[in-house]
């Protein structure tokens, strides 16, 4: 596959950005999970991206791991909630919707940029394959 390297590199960017989008959607879907105060709250999921073969200029990117946010969450006073403790507090995850929406826009733009890179590379390779023809 190393003949058409640029495509694999752009592809690794696509995969990483899609995993980022998956993590963000997961966070947003679980943003209102209530738990009782003696249990950990839903933790924000963050993707750790790392350059492959840093410095060689031709590795691309890979997901090195997943990090989780704080489990402490934020406590909210809701005495009517069936999960409330004796003082009436419930725990919610410590995720900021505005922050997640910003990240979502960044992930989407990154994905689109990688698609552009891939189609530019494809056009270049197609032109190279036409060398010498057309006479």
């Amino acid at each position, binding site marked *: *596959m*190393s*003949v*058409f390297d640029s495509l694999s590199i752009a592809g690794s960017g696509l995969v990483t950005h899609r995993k980022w989008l998956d993590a963000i959607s997961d966070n947003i879907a679980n943003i209102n999970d209530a738990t009782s105060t003696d249990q950990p709250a839903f933790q924000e999921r963050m993707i750790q991206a790392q350059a492959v073969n840093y410095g060689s200029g031709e590795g691309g990117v890979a997901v090195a791991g997943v990090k989780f946010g704080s489990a402490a969450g934020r406590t909210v006073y809701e005495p009517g909630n069936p999960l409330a403790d004796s003082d009436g507090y419930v725990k919610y995850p410590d995720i900021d919707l505005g922050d997640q929406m910003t990240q979502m826009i960044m992930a989407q733009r990154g994905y689109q940029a990688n698609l552009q890179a891939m189609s530019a590379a494809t056009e270049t*390779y197609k032109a*190279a*394959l036409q*060398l*010498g023809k057309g006479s």
Partner: protein
Amino acid sequence: MTAPIGGIGIPSVALTGVGGAAGLTGATDITPAAGATATQGSSGGDFASILAGSLDQLQSTQSTADTLATQAATGDLRDVSDYMIASNEAQLATDTVVTLKNQAVSAFNEIMRMPV
């Protein structure tokens, strides 16, 4: 392969392009192309040695193109344009050699047809 027409000295066409022009820096005096004034051409410029030289070049361009094609088949090729350039060079070299051979053969036949 020995050249049966080695005795014929045909004035060689200058294969070096417009010799004498001082590059692309705007030369003011452009001397005429070297081939226009030469009648004997450069040393070793007779037809047989041109043909032999082209055959040598053909062998090397074809083997370069073959090596790069094998690399393309196994996916080890670093740069697509390397292979495309090599294959075009091999094609041009083959065409050159074949054309020279055909011209040589037809010139020979022409001469053999001459009444003594």
